């Protein structure tokens, strides 16, 4: 019954699954995280090697190799080259491809419907649905975050679209599940509708909410992989897929929590738009402007400068300039530190990654709780493209959506310089009283350019 080749394949799959679990465990602690991905990679190699020798792989060996080479080479080059600041879209892209691959398995197996029982077909169809949504949704997220697709409101009635597509999808899925012959046309229709669903779901979501949505699609892709694993009778896929799904669901919740949002809010409504056109803008008070030269002088003759980076620094890709500025100030004997707020930027660890990329040394980076106790020692706080994380309304305004979020108390430092482009608002879309604060001076302009101006001004001082 047990043929020996299949025995070793099953064993390899088993160890692969165990290594995935162990790798995930290691990845969830900062100290062992990097070894975690290596452990998981070992499991992956095992699973891939086993699949080559799989008794069901009866033909197309060369095609498999070629497909792997093409897919692998393209994504290797791409993944190596991409900027670290583009991580979220990268994750979206690879995630989408994974979900898509699960859907292709479903397609092949549903075309061979006769070989499978009803329970396989049901899970196959369910996996195809989820995989397709993860595929089209993730790819659209990728395109939007890369700036290829303009963000926009979904114009039609989203609820109706959801219900209509879902109803047809379920009907088609039902037909496909309970028939043991292949229906290529129905199948194509089914796949197209599933892909459409993912697009409808993703189109109205704002860039800031994307990381949460991507995490949700990640969970979805995992589930699709788990389901297709059942279709193929591959328990390693079932285990790994479900593992990813459960971890992804929890991660999605944690990420939504961290930015003070509910998942349902994200999925059922566009965000920020109502705020952006609120009349609060009317109350906008007087702002003290400062030119680059004055800003430069203030910092060059200070003793303690604190740089607070935010989403705007990431958008402007200003991190390398910021590092240059830091070195320049330090050569003049100024002590420069960075304060990273937990939710600065648009994904966890966003600022840490960018500053690390630019070569800012870790000793200079302080976290919220550390630095807030020492604010009064700071001569100049330089806010680069940050808003919500230094928004005084979080402290004072009970009704503010930010209320209760701890902020960096830069108003307790001796003076504040803010770099921003226009008098726009942050992610939460609300006014920031810090801008009108007596200690604050604002320099308008793209962050990268502003920092460059300040650098030039400091150089001109000597």
């Amino acid at each position: 019954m047990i043929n020996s080749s299949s025995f070793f394949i099953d064993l390899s799959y088993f160890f692969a699954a165990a290594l995935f679990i162990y790798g995930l465990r290691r990845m969830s602690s900062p100290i062992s995280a990097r070894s975690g991905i290596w452990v998981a990679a070992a499991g992956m190699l095992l699973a891939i090697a086993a699949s080559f020798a799989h008794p069901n792989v009866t033909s197309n060996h060369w095609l498999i190799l070629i497909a792997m080479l093409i897919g692998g080479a393209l994504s290797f080059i791409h993944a190596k080259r991409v900027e670290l600041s583009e991580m979220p879209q990268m994750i979206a892209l690879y995630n989408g491809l994974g979900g898509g691959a699960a859907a292709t398995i479903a397609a092949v197996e549903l075309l061979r419907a006769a070989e499978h029982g009803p329970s396989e077909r049901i899970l196959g169809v369910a996996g195809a649905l989820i995989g397709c949504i993860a595929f089209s949704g993730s790819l659209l997220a990728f395109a939007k975050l890369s700036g290829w697709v303009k963000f926009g409101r979904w114009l039609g009635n989203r609820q109706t679209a959801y219900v209509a597509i879902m109803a047809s999808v379920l009907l088609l899925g039902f037909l496909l599940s309970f028939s043991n012959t292949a229906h290529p046309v129905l199948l194509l229709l089914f796949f197209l509708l599933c892909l459409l669903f993912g697009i409808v779901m993703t189109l109205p979501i704002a860039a800031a909410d994307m990381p949460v949505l991507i995490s949700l699609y990640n969970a979805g892709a995992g589930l699709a992989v788990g389901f297709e694993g059942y279709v193929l009778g591959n328990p390693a896929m079932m285990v790994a897929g479900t593992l990813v799904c459960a971890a992804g669901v929890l991660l999605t919740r944690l990420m939504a929590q961290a930015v003070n949002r509910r998942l349902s809010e994200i999925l059922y409504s566009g965000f920020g738009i109502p705020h952006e056109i609120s009349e609060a803008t009317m109350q906008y008070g007087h702002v003290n402007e400062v030119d680059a030269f004055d800003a430069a002088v203030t910092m060059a003759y200070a003793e303690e400068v604190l740089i607070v980076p935010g989403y705007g620094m990431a958008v402007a890709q200003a991190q390398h300039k910021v590092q240059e500025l830091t070195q320049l100030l330090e050569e003049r004997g100024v002590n420069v530190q960075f304060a990273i707020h937990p939710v600065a930027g648009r994904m966890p660890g966003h600022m840490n990654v960018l500053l690390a990329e630019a070569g800012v040394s870790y000793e200079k980076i302080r976290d919220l709780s550390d630095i807030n106790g020492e604010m009064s020692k700071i001569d100049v706080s330089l806010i680069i493209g940050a808003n919500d994380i230094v928004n005084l309304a979080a402290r004072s305004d009970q009704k503010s959506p930010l209320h209760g979020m701890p902020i960096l108390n830069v108003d307790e430092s001796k003076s504040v310089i803010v770099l921003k482009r226009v008098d726009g608002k942050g992610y939460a879309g609300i006014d920031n009283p810090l801008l009108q604060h007596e200690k604050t001076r604002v320099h308008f302009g793209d962050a990268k350019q502003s920092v460059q101006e300040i650098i030039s001004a400091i150089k001109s001082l000597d």
Partner: protein
Amino acid sequence: MDAFVALYLFMLAGIAGYVLIANVPSILHTPLLSGSNFIHGVVLAGAMVALGHAEGALQITIGFIGVMAATANVVGGYVVTDRMLAMFESTAKRNKRRVEEQAKLLAERNGELDRQASADVAGSTDNTDHDGDKLS
């Protein structure tokens, strides 16, 4: 595979995934997202089998696309995660001491009353520190 056994696998793997992630610090959310993204790249194992027994142009084409996409998932997922974790590594090392202290505190706190005793047995080298009262 028996459908019920599959149900057990799904349930148990789900519990494992959830519990393993439960206490992850949020600075690791992005790398972990990317890492678990890599793990579902095991779909490649399935895509290879699907292509390996595909027949006719349609099935083979779909299977080919599947293997390509899955390989891209695996390779890209790995590279991106590893790059990201490499950035975090030195931060992690810097924080290691702090994390260890926290872990100790945490262990003590978890073991509320009794465990404290043994934790101190292991940790204490100081003769005069016989109090063990680190939490009060």
